[in-house]
């Protein structure tokens, strides 16, 4: 039976893992390679590394980080942040990533999704979408607005419509972040997640709002998510993916255990 995935996310800045709420009060949380290996050892089903301050100058640092992180990592490894062209993606793959996540660049040039998919396969392209409910829209959830540049810039695109286009162009998965829920620890936006998950035939990874085990139960149930990103929850009582997964399994969610 296919299991739901718990994905550990590492935010990286200048070659170091950082922690902070909405880019504020960022503190150093260690070496990416060490942290990724620890998460894999502690039961994470997949690792995502996001370069949160991707800059042109930082490319070499990022590639070095990816190379070091991938070296001893034998679970799926996705890298995002600052991937603007198929050549950028190729360098990240060669450094050892299994998937790349594209966000702003795909909205600026949707053909980027086709280009990466053609060369590396659809399974290697994750389209990350940051969306906020649009209370003025007829359907505030399905018509949630898509933002780019770390949630700073509205695009006018609607979440369901953009997710469908991404799928059509050959995305292998959608990484959906609810901007309303992100940072609240009050739970995932299950309505938003379900709306996108029902609209596409590819897996949807839910992100934003996790605070308790129940929140994960909800997003895998009501939210119809195939996977969920766990970040801040590890600071609040549950110390490992394994611990989270054991509790979820007890609650009836199918998990990769033992792991």
């Amino acid at each position, binding site marked *: 039976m*296919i*299991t739901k995935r718990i994905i550990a996310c590492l935010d990286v800045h200048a070659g170091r893992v950082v922690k902070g709420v909405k880019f504020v009060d960022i503190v150093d949380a260690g070496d990416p390679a060490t942290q990724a290996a620890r998460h894999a050892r502690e039961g994470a089903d997949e690792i995502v590394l996001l370069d949160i301050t991707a800059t042109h100058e930082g490319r070499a640092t990022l590639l070095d980080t990816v190379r070091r992180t991938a070296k001893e990592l034998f679970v799926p490894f996705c890298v995002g942040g600052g991937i603007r062209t198929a050549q950028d993606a190729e360098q990240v793959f060669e*450094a050892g990533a299994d998937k790349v996540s594209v966000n702003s660049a795909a909205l600026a040039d949707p053909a980027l999704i086709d280009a990466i998919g053609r060369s590396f396969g659809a399974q290697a392209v994750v389209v990350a979408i940051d969306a906020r409910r649009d209370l003025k829209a007829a359907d505030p959830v399905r018509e949630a607005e898509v933002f780019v540049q770390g949630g700073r810039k509205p695009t006018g695109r609607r979440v369901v419509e953009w997710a469908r286009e991404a799928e059509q162009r050959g995305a292998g998965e959608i990484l959906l972040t609810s901007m309303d829920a992100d940072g609240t620890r009050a739970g995932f936006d299950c309505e938003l997640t379900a709306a996108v998950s029902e609209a596409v035939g590819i897996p949807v990874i839910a992100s934003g709002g996790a605070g308790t085990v129940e929140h994960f139960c909800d997003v895998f149930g009501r939210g119809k998510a*195939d996977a969920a990103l766990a970040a801040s929850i590890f600071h609040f009582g549950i110390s490992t993916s394994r611990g989270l997964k054991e509790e979820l399994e007890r609650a009836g969610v199918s998990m990769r255990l033992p792991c």
Partner: protein
Amino acid sequence: MRVTVIDYKAGNLTSVLKALRHLGAEVEVTDADLALVERAERVVLPGVGHFAATKRLDDTGLTGAIRAAIGRGVPFLGICVGMQWLYAGSTEAPELPGLGAFAEPCTRFSEGTEKIPHVGWNSLEVRKGSRLLAGVELGVFVYFTHSYKGPVTVDTAAVTEYIEPFAAAVERGNVMGVQFHPEKSGETGLKILKNFLEVQR
């Protein structure tokens, strides 16, 4: 342990090479050098993406070289599309024949309520007698990402269920294939690759 990995430009090889090297294998990569395949001790054919990529194996003459190597008893492991290529072909690219080591074609998962592709960790029901899966316990999880799959037959070494039961691994003599990605399947995957590296001719 020397392993010859075939590069036919079907996705990224980095992870497979890394895992084999991690296990101590001496890895050589070729995209057209038939002489390397002719003196290969073990052959791995990875591959993600579209079945049509296997056309390159025919174009470069690698198909013939691999067929000959298999005939000499060289242990062969196909991964993902590399496994599907061992069959008669795939409905993903009906005009292209596979190697035909297994007579049936690969087909797409049936459309329904479940998502396609099948992405994530799923369990293996290992059948008895597999050298590739020796010591791999019933129900362990491995990582899949695919939309096409091989049928369950007498040559199936492990069955996984998603929408329907399919061949997660296939094995007959020295010809082996896995639909999942052992290089991304944690300790279980490394064990399976290690088994392959230790298969005696």
